[in-house]
């Protein structure tokens, strides 16, 4: 079963062929982004001859991707810090409070996994505009923290329940405060699940489109997907330029994926977020 047999080789060929077919859109993306308009019209799918990087320099400045990268980073990092901080200690409470009320609260949080965000979309928009938060980083950070808390708490609570309570109890008996027991003993033990929470939420927040379009569209704080959306709308028929923009917009997260591949795949395989 474990040897490399002719049948394994046939499977290898089949899978590589599937991989090549799968990559066709990516091939089109890359070759078109390196062609000028004339080449795109005459031979859209051939190799670029000669290749040009003009599309890339123009897309970078026209789409102001530098500032979009900054906005996306600020929003993603701040939301993750808040989610992990308040999500993990909230879950710690819910996992350790073996009362009816604690359990009811847990169910209340789980409800948020099922509710589509569209249900509260307009009232929340009105609330934020009353607080004059539309167009600010704060609006998006608060939004992501709230909307991703149920899922975050779900993952943390399951993990903490399987963890013995004795470590924290021992610290409390020795005179540590609850806060000390949590930050010094419990939180470090949560590292594996914190990794999963971090990866799944980061990918979701980084790529989210609709709410940032609503809250940040037209402001100076647009995230990468919103910026790309506006950019494509503006240069819709100039495929070379548009595709250079798409490549530049996708590079940051693909780079992180390639560096942390093992963890990212493990996070997605163990968690459950769509």
């Amino acid at each position, binding site marked *: *079963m474990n*040897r490399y047999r002719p049948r*394994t080789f046939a499977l*290898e060929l089949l*899978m*590589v062929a*599937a*991989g090549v077919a*799968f990559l066709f859109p990516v091939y089109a*993306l890359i070759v078109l982004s390196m062609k000028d308009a004339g080449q795109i019209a005459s031979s*859209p*799918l051939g190799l670029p001859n000669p290749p040009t990087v003009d599309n890339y320099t123009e897309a970078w400045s026209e789409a102001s991707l530098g500032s979009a990268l900054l906005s996306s980073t600020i929003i993603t990092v701040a939301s993750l810090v808040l989610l992990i901080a*308040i999500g993990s*200690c*909230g879950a*710690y*409470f819910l996992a350790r*409070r*073996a*009362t*009816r009320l*604690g*359990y009811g609260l847990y*169910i209340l*949080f*789980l409800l*948020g996994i*099922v*509710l*589509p965000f*569209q*249900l*509260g*979309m*307009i*009232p929340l928009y009105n609330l934020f505009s009353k607080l004059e938060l539309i167009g600010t980083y704060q609006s998006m950070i608060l*939004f992501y923290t*709230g*909307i991703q*808390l149920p899922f975050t708490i*779900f993952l943390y609570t399951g993990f903490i329940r399987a963890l013995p309570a004795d470590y*924290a*109890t021992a610290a409390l008996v020795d005179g540590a405060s*609850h806060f000390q027991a949590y930050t010094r003993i419990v939180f470090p033990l949560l590292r594996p699940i914190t990794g999963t929470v971090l990866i799944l939420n980061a990918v979701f927040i980084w*790529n989210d*489109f*609709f709410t940032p379009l609503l809250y940040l569209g037209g402001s100076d704080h647009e995230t990468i*997907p919103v910026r790309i*959306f506006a950019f*494509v709308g503006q240069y819709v028929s100039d495929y070379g330029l548009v*595709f250079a923009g798409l490549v530049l*917009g996708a590079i940051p*997260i*693909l780079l992180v994926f*390639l560096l942390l591949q093992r963890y*990212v795949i493990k996070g*997605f*395989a*163990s968690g*459950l977020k769509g």
Partner: protein
Amino acid sequence: MSTQVLEASPTPPQERPAKRRRPRNRLGPPWLFVAPALLCYGAIVLYPSASGVLYAFTDWSGLGGWSFVGLRNFDSLLHDDRALGSLRNTLLLTVAIVVVQNGVGLLLALGVHARIKSRMLLRAIFFAPVVVSPVMVAFLWKYVYNPAPNAGLNGVLGAVGLGSLRQDWLGDPSIALWSVAAMVVWQYAGYSMVIFLAGLEGISKDVREAATIDGAGPVKRFRYVTWPLLAPATTINVMLSTIGGLKLFDQVFAATAGGPGYATETLSTVLYKEAFVFGRYGYSTAVALVLALFVAAVSLVQIRYLRAREDQA
């Protein structure tokens, strides 16, 4: 880990402090630990969602006052061809995505689980689109679906002698919906793949070797050993793709904006347009409520049905 969603069903808390009638459990963390989470969740999710449910029964336009109109929004929904069409599209898209994405995901998982040399590279390739923004994937596919005969998919079909299969993939109302589904499958088949792969890796080699020794060929081994043992992975995959399909918005919004005509309109695009294009907020939240009920109902039915299947396995 991968079966957590199933364990989330109501199991009453086991430990109960027994000593005093109302013990002050000094070893349990204080309420302060959950207060920030509760506050944030309440303000961002619970309060707006509850208001959303309320507005679904009003004629609010987003500006000024409103009055209750009872079930009128839901009644108009039943007579609104566009909303009904979007409901139909949403369900068709969801079924197509669930079946094809998981079918392809399973085949890919079986392929890259085998001892082929390129398995690690192929895993990375098939999974990579999952981490990219759906809007960007949609723009890429808009080119793949370019109607010009020498561009995108049509260009490839022409080059391999299948020119007769060329289509206006997103412009022809009879196939646009399936083109959107294919694009979503391309992006997320790798997601189903890694979940099935985790399931496959959890199946002990001994079980399959025992089946081989007993004379089961690859098909029988899959049918009677692998497939039943993949039940937890199947559960999670079907749930994830169903909920993702029902809520589908970004890809449709970027690729077709619901067109041509209403051919690819989904519940999410309709409720967006009702709210932000036509300013019918009350009606829009009624559509959102219908979507919420669908998502909730499907989640509950699936959890029940798929758990029963797992028990049999």
